[in-house]
């Protein structure tokens, strides 16, 4: 890919860049489709507005936790 080999035009885009661009475009498309199909289940605000996980007392939790490992 040295400019001295052919000085009339720039070298073509390498194959690995082309393949990476196609893979990235497909992934972006999948993410967009997933966001359209499952609206409101992604993004930074998904747990903040209308979350069902309201803070509760930790008393009952510690009582029911039997010290199990992973």
């Amino acid at each position, binding site marked *: *890919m040295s400019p001295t080999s052919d000085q009339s035009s720039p070298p073509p885009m*390498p194959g*690995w860049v082309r393949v990476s661009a196609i893979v990235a475009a497909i992934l972006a498309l999948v993410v967009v489709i997933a966001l359209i199909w499952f609206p409101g289940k992604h993004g*930074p605000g998904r747990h903040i507005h209308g979350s069902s996980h309201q803070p509760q007392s930790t008393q009952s*939790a510690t009582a029911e936790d039997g010290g199990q490992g992973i």
Partner: protein
Amino acid sequence: MTLPRMITRLVLTAHVVTSVGWLGAVMAYLALDIVASASDNIANVRAAYFGMGLTIRVVIAPLAIASVLIGIVNALTSSWGIFRHYWVVVKLLLSIFATVILLLELQTVAYLAELASMNAEPRSLPGSLLHSIGGLVILIMVAVLSVYKPKGLTPYGWRKQLRLNSGAAQGADGAAEGSSAASQ
């Protein structure tokens, strides 16, 4: 931009340290994320969320920002440049993308950590496993690009190298003419 060799070495070292630190911190975060998502033990899940919140805020985010900024300085002060080689451009884009997603996720993880500390049932919280794995994959791709440096000049890099080569050839011609004139 040319800097003394000692400075460029220092910038390169800082870039490697912050990038490798970022990768390692994401691996540690992934371990905590797996515990938060899969463990049955409430105390472990709560501790994992606390660790995730702390790690992403104090370690991962600062390292990510430092890695991107120092990487740009490193590229500008080396012969690689930022836009001359495809691998540098792809690496920069991947790093910026990972940093933006990370900063967006920061608020969510901080909130999850807070929620897990107060919630009676932290095991029902969603975790951030998909983002952790995605981030790790991107950082491994960045590391592979940095080591293998696949060939490929951008059109800008090609024109730049062409100018450098023609300048060097003219300089050599001028020197040759000067020496032949001196010998006559």
